[in-house]
């Protein structure tokens, strides 16, 4: 038997394989360089433009005329060459690929490190750089070294107020920032089945923060039901006895709300120990935690109250925003004092919208708290949506247990 990565890539760990890529995607950030490399290659035509996606999410809408010009060039290219294209306002690439496009067993390559998010669907999904992507446009495939796999064996179920993000930060801290470099992660065990598709996306999303190439769940009944909603008839994948390089066991019932302390994703502290830390901004969104369930959870906690700190909310996609509009979640968020940003990556990478000033502190539901990432001199604590809601109400880092 073999690991899920070995099954999908069709070779044992350690082998180098040339594989066709089922779907590839770029965003407005990496797409510009991909297009530049593509033009330099003078490849002529794309091997499979119908399998290629260009999704604008990083600086949307454009913040200045340089960005606007670069985006316009890529937009025109996508239209002329028949690539699938989503414009400003549609949402984050990983979220959109997760809304009924990515399927179990597929090989998916994105020009963004968080492409591993789609491992939640049982796909082998990994990030590459722009030039690799240009070669994929030209050839329809790429090379991989089949990774060894570390199993994250999940036991039990999460107990409120802990949520998937706390579990994700917990496993990253256990593995450390390079503990899974060149490896794949597989989330297995009875606890994995208790997690919703959205929670799985949060867990898979953080895989790259351990250096991992991919973070996979086996497609199960929940995966198939989710994809059924998008008209797909997927089949569950069968985990077997296989050779993991090592196993990490996590008792989910013991997971507590945590924050990752700047500037490292793998340095976590229980929120309870950090209560009272003054905040200048709370940010909810991104490919980690910008889904409908996240907005709903946040609004349920702040509804009828008033946030005490600048609070920015970026829905992960137009679908998420539309659902939040229809259900009343959006108006609850607006009435409680939150600022709604257009669907996209928002301030996560510090390029626009919610850049931090010198000395400012932000609690973010994103996935990176590297030095100066959201603005020079700003500090980022990473936490769950519930922790973000409790903290927004308190104006300082606060434990979600107290509010719930």
């Amino acid at each position, binding site marked *: 038997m073999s690991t899920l990565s070995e099954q999908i890539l069709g070779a044992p760990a350690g082998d180098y394989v040339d594989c066709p890529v089922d779907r590839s995607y770029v965003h407005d950030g990496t797409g510009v360089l991909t297009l530049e490399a593509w033009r330099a290659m003078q490849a002529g035509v794309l091997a499979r433009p119908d399998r290629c996606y260009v999704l604008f999410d990083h600086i949307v809408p454009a913040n200045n005329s*340089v960005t606007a010009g670069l985006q316009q060039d890529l937009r025109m290219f996508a239209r002329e060459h028949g690539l699938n294209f989503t414009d400003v306002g549609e949402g984050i690439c990983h979220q959109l690929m997760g809304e009924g496009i990515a399927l179990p067993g597929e090989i998916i390559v994105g020009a963004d490190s968080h492409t591993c998010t789609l491992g939640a669907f049982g796909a082998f999904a990994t990030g590459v*750089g722009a030039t690799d992507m240009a070669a994929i446009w030209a050839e329809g495939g790429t090379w991989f070294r089949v990774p060894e796999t570390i199993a994250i064996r999940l036991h039990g179920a999460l107990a409120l107020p802990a949520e998937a993000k706390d579990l994700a930060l917990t496993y990253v801290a256990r593995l450390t920032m390079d503990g899974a470099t060149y490896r794949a992660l597989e989330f297995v065990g009875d606890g994995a089945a208790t997690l919703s598709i959205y929670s799985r996306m949060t867990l898979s999303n953080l895989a790259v923060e351990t250096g991992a190439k991919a973070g996979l769940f086996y497609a199960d009944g929940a995966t198939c039901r989710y994809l059924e909603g998008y008209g797909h008839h997927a089949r569950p994948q069968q985990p077997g006895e296989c050779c993991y390089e090592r196993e990490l066991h996590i008792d989910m019932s013991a997971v507590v709300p945590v924050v990752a302390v700047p500037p490292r994703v793998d340095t976590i502290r229980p929120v309870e120990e950090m209560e009272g830390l003054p905040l200048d901004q709370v940010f909810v969104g991104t490919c980690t935690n910008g889904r409908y369930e996240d907005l709903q959870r946040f609004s349920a906690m702040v509804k009828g109250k008033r946030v005490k700190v600048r609070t920015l909310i970026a829905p992960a996609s137009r679908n998420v925003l539309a659902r939040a509009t229809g259900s009343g979640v959006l108006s609850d968020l607006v009435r409680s004092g939150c600022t709604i940003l257009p669907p996209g990556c928002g301030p996560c990478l510090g390029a626009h919208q919610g850049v931090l000033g010198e000395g400012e502190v932000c609690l973010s539901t994103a996935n990176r708290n590297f*030095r100066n990432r959201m603005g020079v001199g700003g500090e980022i604590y990473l936490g769950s949506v519930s922790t973000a809601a409790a903290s927004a109400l308190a104006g300082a880092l606060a434990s979600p247990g107290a509010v719930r």
Partner: protein
Amino acid sequence: MIIEGHALCLGPDIDTDVIIAGRYLRTRDRSEWARHAFEDLDPTLSSRLEGTVILAGKNFGCGSSREQAAIALKEAGVRGVIAPSFARIFYRNAINVGLPVIECECTCSDGEMVRADPAAGKVAIGDRSYLTRPLSPRMREILSAGGLVSYWRGRR
């Protein structure tokens, strides 16, 4: 291919946000990335990169997939990067843009002469020498061609 230059020592877990910050990405001007390389680590560093071989700690280039990180170093005149381990996307990007990367655990002292042969897996720093895993033939070919774009064009 032989890599030669003066050692520049850096710590572990240098992320690509530190190599080139997100605020400088939206341009086609590659010299802009070179000018701002490592700015948030040390604003004076970019002017001293020409002719160096970076000797970094583990997990060099972690984080964002931005290829501008590898391009910035190459444009700034960095001859190569040697580290015990690299984040995998940065590693592929570096090879693809023609920036030599070698996995090797070695002791660093700023300014020492570094001479490395990625094909043979040999690294010499000052009077110390190290043996490491040679690059794969495909990676060597891509590097010799100056990067994946010219390698790809050469194969057609």
